[in-house]
């Protein structure tokens, strides 16, 4: 675990003068399964989104294996929050998973048999093969989450960013998802997960980052997942002013 997969330098993000992320430095080693924890409004989703260039930071830089994101896109996959899209969109489960292949296809080129095959494989991995032709609005919350996960798996990336994949899913889906995440880690992939359930952090993850606008701590779960850091993250209200 020497190689650094993701490196974040001095990342600062603000919405209308209110800083959401303040001067974040982060080094995520290759092959870890990392949780980002922190209270509501701590900037967890914002951190992922600005690392991926969906949001524009006002300062800071991000690199993947030492190179900027624009050069390393094929190494990175993203699982957005389930609630970020309209599930009444007229399309099927298989179609959504196929979208994971669009990035490697590039502009204009259509997905073919090869892309379909890898999409079907991903659906099987998340246990959703029988639902491949199901209209997406007819899937349960947990099934929708698995579809999103399958879409990211199709990208066959090295680094995965997931925004609350366990939100609103039942116990069965949670186990299914965590098993896939652990499988990814065994394949030496790096997985970064925004996570809400503190109880399960030691069981699911081996690396953790405490975040509350500022980075509180980051490191191996066994070393830093303690009351001290939890109090620092959840107990005190940080107020930093941008005028400085």
């Amino acid at each position: 675990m020497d190689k650094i997969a993701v490196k974040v330098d001095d990342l600062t993000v603000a919405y209308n003068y209110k800083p959401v992320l303040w001067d974040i430095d982060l080094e995520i080693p290759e092959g870890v399964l990392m949780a980002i924890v922190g209270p509501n409004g701590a900037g967890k989703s914002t951190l992922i989104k600005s690392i991926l260039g969906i949001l524009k930071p006002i300062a800071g830089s991000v690199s993947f294996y030492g190179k900027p994101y624009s050069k390393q896109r094929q190494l990175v996959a993203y699982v957005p929050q389930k609630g970020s899209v309209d599930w009444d969109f007229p399309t099927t489960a298989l179609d959504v998973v196929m979208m994971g292949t669009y990035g490697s296809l590039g502009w204009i080129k259509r997905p073919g048999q090869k892309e379909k095959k890898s999409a079907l494989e991903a659906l099987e991995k998340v246990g959703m093969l029988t639902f491949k032709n199901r209209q997406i609005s007819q899937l349960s919350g947990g099934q929708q989450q698995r579809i999103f996960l399958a879409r990211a798996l199709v990208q066959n990336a090295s680094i995965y960013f997931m925004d609350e994949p366990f939100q609103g899913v039942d116990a069965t889906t949670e186990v299914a998802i965590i098993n896939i995440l652990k499988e990814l880690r065994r394949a030496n992939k790096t997985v970064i997960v925004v996570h809400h359930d503190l109880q399960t952090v030691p069981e699911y993850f081996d690396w953790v980052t405490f975040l509350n606008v500022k980075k509180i701590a980051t490191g191996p779960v066994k070393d830093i997942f303690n009351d001290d850091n939890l109090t620092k993250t959840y107990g005190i209200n940080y107020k930093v002013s941008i005028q400085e």
Partner: protein
Amino acid sequence: MDITTYIELVFSDYTLRTITLGTAILGAITGMLGSFAVLRKQSLLGDAISHAALPGIAIAFLITGAKDSNTLLIGALVSGLVGTFWIKNIVTKTHLKSDTALGLILSVFFGFGMLLLTFIQKQPNANQAGLDKYLFGQAATLVESDVWMMAIITGVCLLVMLTFWKEFKILLFDADYTKTLGFNTRIIDILITVFIVLAIVLGLQTVGVVLMSAMLLAPAAAARQWTNSLSKMVVLAAVFGAFSGVFGTAISASQNNLSTGPVIVLVASVFVAFSFIFSPSRGLLFKQIRVIKNRRDLELHKTLAFMYHIAETHENISHPHTVKLLNNFQGYTKSTLQKLVDKDYVKLNGNMWSLTPTGFETAANLYTKQSTNDE
């Protein structure tokens, strides 16, 4: 006039043929692009764009002094685009939400357009009469070159849509994710928006500023009811739009003096109403039927479960009981009992009922199924 003579007339009469073709093409392109607008939850964008086009028409007339429809439409296109990009800028650069931005741009541009129209009407230029036809549209002014123009733009739009189908689809579904895959979402967004503006501007002469947005929304809303596939939805919306144009023209041509634009819009809304009620999967009618059927099934199950509880206490499950016993049970009616008999779950013998072995087994399964569901 009966239908066959009307159809003959469409093929022989120049004006009627031009209008029919024009409105059909217009309906097709607006239906097609309307699907995108509806799925992006930008239904009202069309309304804002069409109203924003009005000052462009007036300014184009003031500059050129001519009423050539192509010149005026270029003016409409420019001010429509300006309005649209202002809306987008307001949404991204201020705290205002998109509905506020739409309403603001719509009324400001429309007000300015009306002001210019009244100013033009006071001018001595005799040419100015009839500019206000752009408010409600006048299909009768369509000439062959207008139809050619519509056909060419529709063709280009179709070509672009087929080329960038994959990009359009993924942007409509999940814009953030599209960005992470490395697509320039701004370009796709601009492409879709420009085509929507184009389609609206094309329709101003026929349908007019005020009603134009209905052409965008109605076919798409109707099409969404019938399919769960994006490609089918776009095709269906184009077909609904085209038929609205053809039927609308026919109705207005055969009923004297009925303005074409409003009739087309009304025909399109008939498509919508029909689809909302009669679509098999999403329609109100079948939904209601399913609700009633489910409720009946549940009543039946409840009665069966009640009988099961009584039968359970006896060693012989088919031990007969009096029907009066069931009267204590809420939801029991003679017809539910009859239905249970029809399904061979229950045997009726005079005033006595008894569960059959199948009925007992079904009830037992029902019971365990429900209790596991509760967990």
